[in-house]
């Protein structure tokens, strides 16, 4: 069925047809016709953010916590340029987003019109794909294609730029035609490679699973298959920051997170393994450390839906291009058909070795009764919230790493963090997006005070929609991770890494009609956290923590997995000048 309607109405119709229930946005001149259509309907809820960057991060939180694409609507020019950081963040973390931008009318494009920017030009390198729609008849088709591209293959953000005259003009609405798109990335892996991997699993003496965000993106079924495979083979498993929750932290084979601030046992298992099975991760530099010393004696298999991830950084012996869920299903099928074989004896010895490494207790820290240690704050947060229906977002920095280390994730889609781009200011708007998708759940943004201030304007959004997001700010009055690097790499010259003139967060919360809680004494911490959980509304929790705590373990830049720093005593003069140039 085709129907005549304006471009603006087509936008709303296409969103409805795609099953969109929530749009994050901010109006402006070039999108007024679409906002008019939003005003005239009740199926799609529009959340008015306070800055376009917030809209994109909120949509990312929505997408990551639901598995559905997030949708953003912003105006031309500054509306679009403000969205660029969020788009880049979503591109690096493979988050499906559909971002709609207004544009000046087609006949004014190129004339430096008011609020004109070359949006498709600016966003070409920070989207998976983008379109400028110049013909209302093509608008609906392009919108449907946008959803298809954002969610197919390796997910990512797409942007559709819609000039104002295209919104006003009338055209024919084309309903979505499933399967019509030329873009159909293959999802099934090569059976020959899968069989080779199964043979390698059967023979391996020291195998390890190294999983990433691709497992979460593949969906709950993929996570289930991963759990089945790990538990049936008894192979230990570690995960990147982005993949936490795909395998439960309480699982028998769980090693904890790996990488720069990963766990000792996870990094040593990666270094010493003889078979590495990468499932939906991408050998990021935060994971590999020094490339030429990365897991020197292992055969490496890599399952990834994006062929360009394979052999990009690390040479792969068994490349498998396909969707994680489909490939894991085939691996299980082949492995079972061949008699469910693993080298039990060798793996038992391998597990013993891992148990020895665990005894190092790499997350141990020096406690204090006078001041709240950030690690302690997160341990208490974990203890007091673990039985809740809980979602965690984070900002970027030390608090993010501590959250990844000390909070446990039992299920996928419960952990939203900016991994690839490392965007300070991500967590607060992301928590708003998560809360919109899960109105009755406990949504906590673990933040540092510096990151949090980067998008604090979203307090207005949280207050307006009465979203009970909990902002758990580990306040050290420092840019903690910058300070840590300056201490280790730049001769303790703390150039511009502390925050003067911080706001009174309690008064700030009250100014927005929210609740503020200040806590500085470890003895009061549990009660204060309970007060935060029990308050029905947005809370800013100002947790004053030790100001000079460093985040360990740490693999310094330019070092290998088995050269971890475990604590303060380890850190004298360990990073050479070669490492200082790395980030």
């Amino acid at each position, binding site marked *: 069925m085709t129907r005549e309607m304006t471009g603006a109405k087509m936008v709303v119709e296409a969103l409805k047809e795609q099953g969109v229930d929530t749009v994050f946005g901010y109006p402006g001149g070039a999108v007024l016709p679409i906002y008019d259509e939003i005003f005239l309907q009740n199926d799609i809820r529009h959340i008015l953010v306070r800055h376009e960057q917030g809209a994109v991060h909120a949509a990312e939180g929505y997408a990551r916590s639901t598995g559905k694409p997030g949708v953003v609507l912003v105006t031309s020019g500054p509306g679009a340029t403000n969205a660029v950081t969020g788009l880049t963040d979503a591109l690096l973390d493979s988050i499906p987003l559909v971002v709609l931008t207004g544009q000046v009318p087609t006949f004014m494009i190129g004339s430096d019109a008011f609020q004109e920017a070359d949006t498709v*030009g600016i966003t070409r390198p920070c989207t998976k794909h983008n379109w400028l729609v110049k013909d209302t008849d093509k608008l609906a088709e392009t919108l449907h294609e946008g959803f298809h591209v954002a969610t197919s293959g390796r997910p990512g953000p797409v942007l559709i730029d819609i000039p104002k005259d295209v919104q006003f003009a009338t055209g024919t609405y084309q309903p979505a035609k499933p399967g019509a798109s030329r873009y159909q990335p293959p999802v099934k892996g090569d059976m020959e490679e899968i069989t080779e991997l199964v043979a390698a699993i059967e023979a391996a003496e020291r195998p390890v699973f190294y999983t990433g965000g691709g497992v979460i993106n593949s969906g709950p079924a993929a996570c289930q298959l991963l759990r089945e495979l790990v538990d049936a083979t008894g192979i230990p498993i570690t995960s990147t920051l982005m993949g936490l929750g795909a395998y439960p932290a309480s699982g028998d084979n769980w090693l904890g997170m790996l990488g720069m601030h990963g766990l000792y046992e996870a990094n040593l298992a990666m270094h010493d393994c003889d078979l590495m099975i990468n499932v939906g991760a991408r050998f990021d530099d935060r994971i590999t450390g020094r490339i030429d010393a990365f897991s020197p004696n292992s055969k490496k298999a890599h399952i990834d839906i994006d062929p360009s991830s394979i*052999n990009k950084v690390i040479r792969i012996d068994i490349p498998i291009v396909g969707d994680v869920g489909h490939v894991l299903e085939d691996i299980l099928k082949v492995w079972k058909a061949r008699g469910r074989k693993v080298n039990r004896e060798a793996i038992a010895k391998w597990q013993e070795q891992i148990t020895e490494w665990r005894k190092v207790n790499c997350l141990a820290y020096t406690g204090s009764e006078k001041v709240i240690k950030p690690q302690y704050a997160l341990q208490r947060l974990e203890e007091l919230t673990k039985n809740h229906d809980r979602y965690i977002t984070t900002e970027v920095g030390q608090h993010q790493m501590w959250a990844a280390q000390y909070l446990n994730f039992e299920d996928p889609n419960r952990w939203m963090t900016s991994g690839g781009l490392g965007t300070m200011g991500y967590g607060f708007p992301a928590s708003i997006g998560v809360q919109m998708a899960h109105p009755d759940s406990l949504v906590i943004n673990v933040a540092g005070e510096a990151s949090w201030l980067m998008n604090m304007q979203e307090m207005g959004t949280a207050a307006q929609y009465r979203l009970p997001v909990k902002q758990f700010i580990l306040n050290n009055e420092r840019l903690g991770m910058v300070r840590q690097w300056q201490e280790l790499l730049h001769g303790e010259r703390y150039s511009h890494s502390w925050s003067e003139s911080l706001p009174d967060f309690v008064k700030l919360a009250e100014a927005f009609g929210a609740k503020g809680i200040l806590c500085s004494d470890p003895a009061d911490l549990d009660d204060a956290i309970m007060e935060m959980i029990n308050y029905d509304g947005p809370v800013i929790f100002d947790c004053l923590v030790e100001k000079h705590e460093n985040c360990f373990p740490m693999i310094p830049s330019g070092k290998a997995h088995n050269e971890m720093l475990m604590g303060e005593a380890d850190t004298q003069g360990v990073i050479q000048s070669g490492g200082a140039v790395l980030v």
Partner: protein
Amino acid sequence: MSALHIKKGSTRHSAYNLRPNFSDVQERHTLAVLVENEPGVLARVIGLFAGRGYNIESLTVAEVDHTGHLSRITVVTTGTPQVIEQIKAQLGRIVSVHEVHDLTVEGASVERELAIFKVIGDGDKRVEALRLADIFRANVVDSTLNSFIFEITGAPEKIDAFADLMRPLGLAEVARTGVAALLRGV
């Protein structure tokens, strides 16, 4: 393995895998990229090369199938085997790219480039330029009393050689199209 664009007849590992780990040998490859003929598609391809620091030695682009909206981009690039594999994989994941072919590894190919040369001179030099042009099967497409414009088609090396010969004879300006290439046979 088709997604990795592995040449027929090579092993299940990519050709790159058979080479020493992280070879730093620079190779020159000619890639044929079939793309949707839509606004911005060339910018996507060029932006990929610029953004990821790959080399472009030459690039030609034109629509080759009007009804199918297909353009063919022929790009000559250099890099280590690993970088060449990356370039192909990165090109392959651009949504508007239909096919990526590495003509350097997929079989024997024919490479042609067209160039026009303006040579200014008189007397013996003018006669010598005309004689050499004849040997290189270059055509005279314009002439004044003291200048020629030659048109020459061939492999880039042949055009380089012709340019070297013309230089002392009064070569004033050169315009080259860049390489167009096709695989031989069916």
